[in-house]
């Protein structure tokens, strides 16, 4: 039934396309999934989506292969999450575990970025950039390449299992699986040196976790992108629900303009001649045929719609052929839509009558509201933008002002102090010097305050300042003893400071420490 030959209506091809779920016939929740065979769309949104796909997939697959020279003491991979050494490298930025708030901040920015985009231009994330959308698109390219476009695919699907069908299906699923392996493979390269890992992976010598990860991601890519497709968006993904809460009457959503499309008619000329009100929609079903979600946008806003805008392309093509204005389906706000509907129905008093929206010369009357880009800059969007920018500036400030030399001190607590044979009192400290750049450094460690105190580092004797070599990109631990002679006890100063300073860059960090002494000496 689905593959009935298409009718011809003038120059416009009329397709038999039944939406998987329609207002006139709601699908029961427990019904078996109806297969969707999206037709190839052409137009400016489709071209834009090819571009987005190219860019996003290239970023994903190629990023781990970018090299970035950091010298001898750090890896030369531009983007690397080194879980073993607990370092995150991103081009010129190196993040230590305690700086993970940068990543948290980026996630906060990503969240507000989504709010921002959604309130401004609707579910653009879903329609263009979401991995699910991008990979389904990629899988559909393969499917079309092997099995042909919509009609051929529907014929093949309904037909018997011939040798040709088996050949095509095997080819399609094999290529899908290969894409899955490459996708999972690209993921693991973010976590280890990519060329080395690739070699050991192929030689079957990589860590089991690598193979497990690739296997899991191959499976999810294949199942989500090839088999489940629109069901992931409709049933599994929480975003449609959350994003719906961020849309308001001024958000851009893909809209079918009933007020100029209705009454749809396949025999427009005849109907118009009979004096009936005829809309622009010729009921060709092109919009339904291209929809990857299998819905009919003419039923109005629907949860399933990912605003991929392919139906806009399809309908614009039809309108071009008919010589009418494009945009019967287009991005529009609900408030414009409602105003125009009120005009077309005389405030809801009558059915839609396109004669109210078009003047005698066929042009739209002045009362019709068209999209005004200024509506994007409304308070809600500006607030999201403001927060997004603030978080971004905060992160930027934190990034340029952060320390690359850090000093942490652990004061011995057991024993709290030691009385030496000459009656002096000694405290022990574990000093941790964090050299957060991949270069060997010599820093001075100095005691500030408590003028009578002396510092001792094993093997270096006594003093109040030492030159210490610290390893590149590492934490260097030093056991330090601080002693106050008996004559100077009790020490009145409550505390003192350790100061670490790089004499060449003057980068420094100061740690305020305490000195414990016997109660009797206080």
């Amino acid at each position, binding site marked *: 039934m689905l593959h009935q030959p298409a009718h011809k209506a003038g120059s416009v091809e009329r397709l038999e396309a039944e939406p998987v779920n329609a207002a006139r016939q709601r699908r029961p929740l427990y019904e078996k999934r109806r297969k969707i065979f999206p037709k190839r769309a052409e137009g400016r949104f489709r071209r834009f989506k090819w571009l987005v796909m190219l860019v996003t997939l290239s970023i994903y697959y190629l990023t781990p292969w970018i090299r970035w020279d950091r010298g001898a003491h750090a890896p030369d991979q531009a983007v690397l999450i080194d879980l073993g050494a607990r370092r995150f490298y991103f081009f010129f930025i190196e993040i230590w575990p305690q700086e993970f708030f940068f990543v948290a901040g980026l996630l906060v920015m990503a969240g507000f970025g989504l709010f921002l985009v959604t309130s401004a231009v609707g579910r653009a994330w879903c329609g263009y950039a979401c991995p699910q959308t991008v990979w389904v698109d990629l899988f559909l390219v393969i499917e079309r390449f092997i099995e042909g476009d919509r009609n051929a695919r529907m014929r093949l699907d309904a037909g018997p299992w011939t040798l040709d069908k088996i050949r095509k299906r095997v080819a399609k699923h094999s290529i899908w699986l290969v894409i899955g392996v490459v996708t999972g493979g690209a993921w693991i390269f973010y976590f280890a040196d990519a060329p080395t890992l690739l070699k050991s992976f192929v030689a079957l010598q990589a860590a089991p976790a690598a193979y497990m990860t690739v296997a899991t991601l191959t499976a999810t890519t294949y199942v989500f992108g090839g088999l489940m497709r629109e069901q992931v968006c409709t049933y599994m993904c929480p975003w449609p629900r959350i994003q719906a809460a961020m849309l308001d009457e001024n958000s851009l959503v893909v809209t079918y303009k009933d007020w100029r499309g209705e009454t749809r008619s396949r025999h427009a000329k005849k109907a118009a001649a009979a004096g009936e009100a005829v809309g622009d929609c010729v009921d060709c079903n092109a919009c339904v045929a291209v929809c990857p979600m299998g819905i009919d946008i003419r039923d109005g806003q629907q949860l399933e719609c990912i605003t991929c805008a392919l139906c806009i392309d399809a309908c614009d093509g039809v309108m071009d052929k008919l010589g009418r204005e494009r945009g019967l389906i287009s991005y529009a706000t609900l408030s414009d839509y409602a105003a125009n509907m009120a005009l077309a129905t005389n405030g809801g008093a009558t059915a839609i009558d396109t004669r109210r929206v078009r003047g005698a010369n066929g042009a739209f009357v002045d009362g019709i509201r068209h999209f005004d880009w200024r509506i994007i800059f409304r308070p809600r969007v500006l607030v999201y933008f403001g927060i997004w920018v603030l978080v971004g500036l905060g992160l930027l400030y934190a990034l340029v002002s952060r320390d690359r030399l850090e000093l942490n001190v652990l004061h011995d607590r057991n*024993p709290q102090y*030691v009385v*030496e*044979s*000459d009656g002096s009192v000694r405290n022990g400290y574990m000093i941790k010097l964090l050299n957060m750049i991949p270069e060997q450094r010599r820093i001075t460690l100095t005691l500030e305050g408590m003028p009578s105190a002396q510092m001792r580092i094993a093997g270096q004797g006594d003093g109040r300042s030492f030159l210490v070599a610290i390893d590149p990109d590492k934490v260097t631990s030093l056991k330090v003893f601080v002693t106050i002679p008996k004559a100077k006890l009790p020490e009145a100063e409550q505390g003192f400071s350790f100061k670490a300073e790089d004499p060449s860059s003057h980068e420094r960090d100061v740690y305020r420490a305490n000195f414990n002494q016997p109660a009797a000496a206080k």
Partner: protein
Amino acid sequence: MADEHKHVDEVSGVETTGHEWDGIRELNNPMPRWWLYSFYATIIWAIGYAIAYPSWPMLTEATRGVLGYSSRAEVTAELSDAKAAQAGNVERIASDKIEDIMADPELRQFAISAGASAFKVNCAQCHGSGAAGGKGFPNLNDDEWLWGGKPEEIYQTIAHGIRHAGDGETRVSEMPAFGDMLAPEEIRATAAYVASLTGTPSSPALVEPGKQVFADNCASCHGADAKGSREFGAPNLADAIWLKGEGEQAIIDQMRLPKHGVMPAWLQRIGDPVVKELAIFVHSLGGGE
């Protein structure tokens, strides 16, 4: 309920289960297929798991499972892995001299860490978890050493113990009970003299006679200057550290009826490498010489 024709709900057009509560009927909607298949998959998984892994409790133990997995064996394997990873260092500690170990910063650090954990198991009971000791139990952090604070000397002390019967090389010394040999006044005078070396005695008049008693009876072990002798494990009495307690009364008590600490010999019990690790650890605490 047993009727042939199932009741069909008018609104939804779905069959009901036939159960009814006050007019409310339960729709007999099928399970979503993905849910049903997941459920079957868990059953198959459970069967496979029960065959592969220990699962069914029997009278004495659970079934073993064909893979022969046990968490105890896993721990054993992990432990032997850890041992294997340390093997190189442990071997070097066993074969090298202490001074050579100390000269290699990495090996020294390994020995200190290993010594720290051995200390917690074997030594902390007397010397405390921070090695700060207590009355009668020496503080190992400070720079006073009864029997010497060089790594080799510390090794010797740990290996053979102090006054440990049954070890020929154990460190031995015994302070006589002066309560039987000296008059109480003499003992009090000696205590006053010893106290005067580092502080103010209770009665300055006793210091001079005490000095004489000390020279006659004590200087042979503690030295004429009372700075002690490591040969006899005789403590320095002219410093700030008092193993048996501070003050004249504590000195009097120790003179009259001395208490002698005993430390076990560890070499036979924990072996040479661990004793080396302990010696290096104790030496690193801050007082090592």
